[in-house]
């Protein structure tokens, strides 16, 4: 996957979106895209534009998420749901290998099945940023996770820029959105533009594979007007972020406030349920478990998502390291925003806001950071209590 400079820009009228899906389906084993399931927008298999949540609007607040069918004709008038690319490149449960015993000998078999190629339509800029973070975690440091790599290499990413950020979004603060800007390499980027009696997408290619794909689409020439419209829309989106996080000196602030009384206040509200870490697109912690056959003839090792909010996560000889919920929340937030930088050279948060929306009690990382930074905090009903 070589990153190349944007080489082509063109216009895909909305009617051409089906052609894009069809082309993706022709070239990939599965095509995923946004689809409503269980009252939320998820990454699901799609085969037609009819599968897309057209006109659906998402409402986000701390601990609250609702979908509404709106009047707009837009295909991507919402932001991220609870799913992220994490579950695609790093499955929640994966049997890594198994072992068979015969006498005193054992034979090991790799259990991770080869995966097919996956095209994903509607990947948001914060998702690309999260993927770039995950690449550092799973492929950097000289220790490669082969399970991650084989999934990661078979992705074809069709990004969609965010023109209508949610109340929980703060990608502008993190420099990861709302436009496609850095992050992991992508293949195609779409910007959905409605106006002047036209509805369609500004399409750019970010890779050779993307350029090849563009050649197969019913594209039109993109005039300067469209590029300008995109810039205007992105600038407006950057200004309408529901939340902000000041990253200036953030690492030092967290390191300096290990004993801040605010941690206790957060712990009073925190359920230690681990939802924030599960929905976080960069949280990568896992547990490995051995399963044995009752007669001891075979065993298998399975990897499952784990969380620093789970007590057993820090169980070592002598007991649990982080017994209090306060210490667990502090660990999570300090790692995400501060020590992640020392460990991986990037901040662990991409500003997607999932941890705010999907926290059942609406604990808000931007607000908790602002308290530690000594900033006045916006109070907005649910997020404070």
């Amino acid at each position: 996957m070589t990153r190349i400079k944007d080489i082509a820009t063109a216009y895909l009228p909305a009617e051409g979106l089906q052609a894009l899906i069809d082309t993706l389906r022709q070239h990939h084993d599965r095509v995923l895209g946004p689809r409503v399931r269980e009252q939320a927008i998820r990454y699901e298999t799609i085969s037609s534009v009819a599968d897309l949540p057209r006109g659906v609007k998402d409402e986000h607040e701390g601990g609250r998420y609702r979908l509404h069918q709106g009047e707009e004709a837009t295909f991507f008038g919402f932001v991220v749901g609870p799913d992220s690319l994490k579950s695609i490149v790093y499955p929640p449960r994966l049997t890594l290998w198994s072992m068979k015993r015969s006498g005193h000998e054992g034979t090991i078999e790799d259990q991770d099945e080869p995966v097919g190629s996956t095209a994903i339509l509607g990947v948001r800029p914060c998702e690309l940023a999260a993927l770039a973070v995950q690449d550092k975690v799973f492929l950097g440091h000289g220790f490669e996770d082969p399970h991650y790599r084989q999934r990661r290499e078979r992705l074809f990413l069709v990004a969609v820029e965010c023109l209508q950020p949610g109340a929980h979004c703060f990608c502008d603060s993190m420099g990861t959105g709302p436009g496609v800007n850095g992050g992991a390499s992508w293949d195609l980027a779409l910007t959905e533009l409605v106006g002047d009696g036209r509805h369609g997408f500004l399409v750019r290619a970010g890779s050779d594979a993307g350029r090849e794909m563009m050649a197969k689409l019913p594209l039109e020439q993109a005039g300067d007007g469209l590029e300008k419209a995109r810039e205007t829309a992105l600038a407006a989106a950057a200004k309408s972020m529901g939340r902000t996080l000041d990253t200036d000196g953030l690492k030092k602030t967290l390191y300096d406030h290990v004993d801040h009384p605010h941690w206790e206040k957060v712990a009073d509200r925190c359920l230690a349920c681990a939802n924030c870490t599960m929905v976080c697109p960069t949280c990568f912690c896992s547990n490995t478990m051995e399963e044995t056959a009752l007669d001891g003839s075979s065993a298998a090792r399975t990897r499952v998502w784990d969380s620093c909010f789970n007590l057993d996560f820090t169980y070592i000889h002598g007991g649990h390291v982080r017994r209090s919920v306060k210490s667990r929340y502090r660990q999570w937030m300090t790692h995400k925003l501060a020590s992640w930088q020392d460990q991986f050279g990037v901040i662990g948060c991409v500003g997607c806001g999932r941890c705010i929306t999907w926290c059942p009690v609406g604990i808000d990382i931007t607000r908790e950071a602002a308290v530690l930074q000594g900033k006045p905090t916006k109070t907005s009903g649910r997020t404070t209590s």
Partner: protein
Amino acid sequence: MAAKRTRKPKLAVWKFASCDGCQLSLLDCEDELLAVTGQVDIAYFPEASREYIRGPYDLSLVEGSITTPHDAERIHKIRRQSKVLVTIGACATAGGIQALRNFGDVKEFTRLVYPSPQFIETLKKSTAIADHVFVDFELRGCPISKEQLVEVINAYLHGRKPAVPTHSVCVECKRRGTACVMVASGIPCMGPVTQAGCGALCPAYNRGCYGCFGPMETPNTPAASGAFSRLGMNEDGIIRTYRSFNAYAEAFRRESERHEPTNH
């Protein structure tokens, strides 16, 4: 690797105040049941077999709660005959649904229910087995999960720790890809304060968790109740939410009592 055994371990299944549903989970194991019987001798299991082999027993599974003076004696005898004692189900680990009596006056109940209450010999409270004897491992659930039961037997056979997590149900919801019913649908859900084990069954069908597996490792019940009340649940509803199969589990009991009108 398991040490070479000269004989198969003897398994006994005991019943106290309960509905038998957890014992049935063992019979419900079907395919695994044959594998289990291949590794252990089922020495005492009246629900399944008339065969009865005298103790002592290597592994005792105890279902049900202690509700009568007779049972309070009997459990000690069982403990004395058992090398390893594992309690199974909400009754055995928390007193069960019948522990709702603990919040009322059992004498009054017997007067109302039975024509001749003088013949009823019962304790004031329904309590967990661990309140009476030392328990080696508690397997939660109403009913227990058969997979977890097999895992406990399996771990026992191989001398390892059972992989029975004590974290929240939320982790199971997210691993299976179920969207949070509390956040996406505004349904009060006990998942954040309940121990995993069921595989997040109810949220997968767009229902809130009922708390069948009892309190998770560090349950912040006041925070959960706060969220329930913001979703429109009244105090009475909150009390009822905590008072089900695990009503007398410490964390749930304390939280329901905190919402009683006299404690405001």
